């Protein structure tokens, strides 16, 4: 399987494991879209925003003495975006509708982020 295929199937598996999730994507640390499974919206733009958030989060962790960043999130009244570092090169973002089992979501997503990190090398 090609790298792209492996990343795509990681996202597809994540979505079947979390049916309430509205989408997920993988971007490079500099904001280029690598793979996506999102139902609506401009995924290129989302990829850039996710990288901005992760990049800032990394520096916040440094500045606040919180070690190296593992994840960050943004919440609104209609849902959340969870952003996971995936190695030094990538980032996984998951768009969640309000509600749902956040504990399960984190469990699945952290495992997926580790897989993405491994694939990206």
């Amino acid at each position, binding site marked *: 399987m090609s790298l792209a295929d492996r990343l795509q199937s990681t996202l597809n598996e994540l979505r079947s494991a979390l049916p309430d999730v509205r989408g997920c994507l993988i971007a490079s640390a500099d904001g280029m879209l690598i793979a996506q499974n999102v139902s609506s919206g401009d995924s290129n733009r989302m990829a850039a*925003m996710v990288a901005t958030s*992760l*990049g800032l989060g990394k520096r916040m962790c440094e500045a606040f003495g919180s070690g190296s960043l593992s994840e960050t999130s943004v919440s609104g009244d209609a849902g959340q975006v969870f952003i996971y570092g995936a190695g030094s090169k990538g980032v996984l973002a998951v768009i969640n509708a309000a509600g749902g089992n956040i504990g399960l979501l984190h469990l699945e997503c952290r495992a997926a982020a580790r897989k993405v990190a491994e694939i990206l090398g």
Partner: protein
Amino acid sequence: MDFAPLKVVVSGPVGAGKSTYIRTLSTTTVVETDEMATECIGKDLTTVALDFGTLHIDGFEVLLFGTPGQERFDFMWSVLCEGAAGLLLLVAAHRPGSFLKARHILEFITSQVPIPFLLAVTHTDQERVWELEEIADFFGLPVTDLLAVDARDRSACARMLHRLLERCLPTGRDEQSRVTA
């Protein structure tokens, strides 16, 4: 007499020297958010969120906010421009291909916040560069709006900022304090 810090935004296309400019001038540890560039952009790293640095100049505390240069991060322009007193638009003299993007950034920011600006022309020491007059023509600006600056040269960077502050505070510091007194 205390003055509120002045916020200055440093923007411009990829590789113009925004991060370098802020690193050169800041007297406090800069917040920089550079990441490995996936594409070939003539350097290894590229800014994904912002650069932030501070310094004191002309009796003012200046907060420098740098934007990313890649267009996909254009949503950061309006975020970073809120409350800004002035704008430095950096353009690389040897990259005419980026001038249109630079003009787009300038128009976007000044339409959001009509603030004084200066065009900082970097990389004038490189080969096959555009002259200041030619660049001024391209932007439809008087050549007095442009200044050549090497983003690695501290005194040149400070001079540039000084010139911008003159535009931000045309009445000067004393006048202003009298007005607000």
